[in-house]
């Protein structure tokens, strides 16, 4: 999921993460090592686990 502009993302633990880019990608597969941001990990998941 892409966010354009300045946003604050609150993760499951209630920690807030502010966007630092003009566009940010939020992890939707749940497996990113840089959560809440996407790090491309969804690509190595089996197709049925990809969002």
């Amino acid at each position, binding site marked *: 999921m*892409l966010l354009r502009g300045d946003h604050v993302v609150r993760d499951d633990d209630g920690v807030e993460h502010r966007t*630092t*880019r*003009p*566009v*940010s*990608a939020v992890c939707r597969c749940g497996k990113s*090592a*840089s959560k809440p*941001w*996407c*790090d*491309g*990990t969804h*690509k*190595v998941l089996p197709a049925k686990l990809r969002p």
Partner: protein
Amino acid sequence: MEVARCSRHGSAEGYLEYVTTLPKPRGPLGVAVLNALADAPTREVPRIDVAPESPDDAALTLWVLHELSYGGFDEVDDDAESDPELMRVRRRLERDLEADLRRRWPGVPEGVELGTGFFDWVADQDGPSLARFVQAQATEDQVLDLLRVRSVYHLKEADPTTWVIPRLPTAAKAALVELQYDEYGVGDPARLHSHLFARGLEASGLRPEPGAYVDEAPLEILEQNNALSMFGLRRRLRGAAVGHLAAFEATSSLPSRRMAQGLERLGFPAEMVSYYTEHVEADAVHEQVALRDICVSLVAAEPAQEPEVWFGAWACLDLENRTATRLLSAWGAAA
């Protein structure tokens, strides 16, 4: 009233202007062109009809001619960029490079929708991976070899694609500028991707000035750079330029993570590691923007560009495969 001075922008101090010198020619065409460049503008460029002696001679010569449109060379007159005889040589070399790429291109993949099938198509083009090798096996010397030859592109990262901006229709143009703004550091010179790489090189004990390692670059690296510059500099090839961008971004995020892990394994300085970690998140975004907002938008406005988008994407992956095969075999590693 009190206004706290709170700038997110770094100081512009300390961004050195580097001296850039001409590389060594690799054959008679290179000798003729480099001599003409060294003599201009005192002596008019003579007619240059000598044929390239080898692919290396052609590629190095074209790299030098393209460089005149980027930072140029300290010892070369700025006006040489548009000298008609040098333009003629450049055009001849570009025509050969493009013809070579089109001969190898298998054509538009059948039954693949650009918007929905592109990333799976990219994944299916799996070739040898330098990032996997660096992650698990490469020695420090092999990584230094790689950083030196990668510097030919990374020190002008994103620049070749900037040429394309005025050639795109509205939606694709807005999206490309958005992507490039991130590449260029969101207004902060310290975050400029090419600058991050220069800092990484310096911290790793390597030279950060553009073109410092061109003499070491194998043919495949020069061809990667030349294709990218050609796609960017020729309006006719705008579709290929953005297709190349989408494929490049789509094969960057996970490999950048592997590169960062390999550099950490070998104890490389944090500046070099952080160049790659920056690309993990940045390019996970850029691949989406490049495909959906740039390529798909361009094709919606100009349907005839679709085959060109596929051609550029294929060229990006093919040229990287050739580079990986070349470097891995030079290191005695299985490609």
